[in-house]
């Protein structure tokens, strides 16, 4: 299924209305981003693999002898730290696609509507909760079919946890909720979603390495040129449908992803 936009036009007055609605508060802007800090959990890989550089913030000056009137920092971090974006080139399945990196992806893909599937109750019961096609079909019974070019955001309230529970590492790896393989293939191929977003570290479940294929969200999303968002917060402030997500990653040359500010526009009506 194509995710090309339909051929439509829009009066510039509508855009001005949007701006004034944001200004007046008729449209709320919800920040879905965690603060980028050095101590935010990152993905844990076996230590013999290359590791994401953690976030480091080093002062250049702070109104002191190093720069009397100004404060600024040097930053280092891996592309996949904090609230971050995954581009198709991140996974081997998307490595040969055109425009598959954060610097070459179409700018229009950075703004899209979202369907929010609330699985917070299930995730509270089961840290290894997996989203399946029947869950989504049940959601569609209530809210309608997921339209093409929409984000699907998995709400689990995982972002409200303390960081140890958030990472939830056991001796057999992380235990965090995510999608199963069939639902990812189905969302990409049958619903044409633009991307999949989670509150957890990674678009995939903590134990997704044991699914078939391993890491199905990465596998199917990026193989079809779609995107991932993870470490989101405040999903509980979004309606099931109708929110508009603005997710513009840093324009890193051939970048596989980046920390970014994710905001949602939500009608307050």
């Amino acid at each position, binding site marked *: 299924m194509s995710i090309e936009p339909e051929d439509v036009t829009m009066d510039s007055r509508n855009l001005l209305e949007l701006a004034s609605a944001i200004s007046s508060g008729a449209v709320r802007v919800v920040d879905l981003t965690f603060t980028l800090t050095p*101590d935010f959990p990152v993905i*844990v890989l076996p230590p013999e693999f*290359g590791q994401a550089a953690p976030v480091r913030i080093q002062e250049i000056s702070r109104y002191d002898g190093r720069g009397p009137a100004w404060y600024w920092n040097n930053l280092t971090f891996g592309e996949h730290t904090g609230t971050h974006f995954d581009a198709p080139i991140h996974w081997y399945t998307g490595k040969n696609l055109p425009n598959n990196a954060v610097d070459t992806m179409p700018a229009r893909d950075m703004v899209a509507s979202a369907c929010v599937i609330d699985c917070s109750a299930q995730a509270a019961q089961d840290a290894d909760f997996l989203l399946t096609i029947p869950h989504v079909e049940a959601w569609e019974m209530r809210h309608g079919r997921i339209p093409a070019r929409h984000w699907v955001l998995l709400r689990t309230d995982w972002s409200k946890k303390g960081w140890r529970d958030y990472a939830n*590492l056991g001796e057999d790896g992380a235990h965090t909720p995510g999608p199963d393989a069939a639902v990812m293939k189905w969302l990409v191929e049958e619903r044409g979603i633009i991307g999949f977003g989670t509150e957890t570290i990674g678009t995939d479940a903590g134990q997704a390495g044991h699914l078939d294929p391993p890491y199905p969200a990465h596998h199917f999303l990026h193989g079809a040129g779609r995107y991932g968002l993870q470490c989101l917060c405040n999903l509980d402030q979004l309606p099931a449908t109708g929110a508009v997500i603005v997710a513009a990653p840093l324009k890193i040359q051939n970048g596989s992803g980046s920390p970014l500010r994710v905001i949602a526009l939500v009608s307050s009506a």
Partner: protein
Amino acid sequence: MIDPIQPPRRKNPLLRTRLPTSPPKPRSRTSHGFTRAAAEGRFMLQRCDACATFCYPAREACPSCLSSSLAFTDAPRRGTLLAETTARVPSDLYFRERAPWRVGLVKMDCGPLIVAHLHADCKEDAAVHMSFQLDKGGQAVAFARPDEETPNMADDRQWREMTADPKFRRVLVTNGRSVVGQETVAALRAAGAKTVFVGVAEPWRPFAGERQLSGQEGIEIVPLDAADEKSVTDLAADIGGKVDILVNTTEYVRAGGLLDRKGTSIARDEIDQAYLGFINLAQAFGPAMRMRGADGVNNCAAWVNILSVYALANWPAFGAYSASQAACLSLSHCLRAELRPGGVKVMNLFTGPTDTEWFQTVPPPKVAPRAVAQAIVAALRNGLEEIYVGDVAEEIRLRLAANPKALERELDR
């Protein structure tokens, strides 16, 4: 017999913290032979190669036969205290503040007479055990202790000036995630440290031994990621004024050299953890430590680094790691110079491969983490500066001194 020292009371906030002063420093280049001996805990005197006469103090020619061949040699430590005196109003500021101060004249069994600082239990005409100690100015001085153990021996006021005994002191162990770190915590508590603060980075990541650390009296787990500037400065803001001894147990070991690694990200992590972490700790904790060098019974006394002995000579199998350790070694000398005005010792503990996970494929002998911890406590109690733990470290030291080129070739295997 001396009275045991009492646990220090809380500070009186109305009183100014006394600033450290230093004993006289000038030494001849030759007499730094004693500095080396003191740093390593050895007792060395010059001995004439021609007539075998031991002599003291340091000189350029043998007092017996005028030979100029006077090498520093390990010497017997026993002597007899001939006479003692107590300086009540010394002119030197450091000693005036610490008066009365006892010194004595010791006749060594091996010959020379030595003026030495005295342990309170040393008696005239009795046997003494001699050592060279590093004083608060970092210079070697002769110190006489009773030849036999006496009650509360380590609590002697003058001896404690020369050492960094953990008893009643508060210690920061920077990394409690490692086995070496955990053994160090246990050893310091057993040695009488009042509080051991244990740094734990990324507390969301579980680690082996975590349960044993938590909930124990005298052990406080604190958030500390040495490589993160803010984490270090935040912790220093809380406890910087309470760290009397800092033990840097940062551990980041990865195999590999240059050509068989791809890119710089592992090397970057090595530098980030070991070298930049060291800088962060020094900048955050160093100034307060230097300022508290004379702050009562639990004055700030020492900074301990655990370094790989391959900081001295690169081991290509762990080549990039060796280089990161060499960088830390160099930095430690800078820190030593900068902490000296505070009388705070910088101790470097050199180990061969430890019996830990990242050296799994390295054949024995390997150093047990507990041996490292015990060596730290011993070094603090004796006021050492250079400590070689285990056979590998000792062997590398000797081979480096004998022929650095041979060592370089032989490590290349």
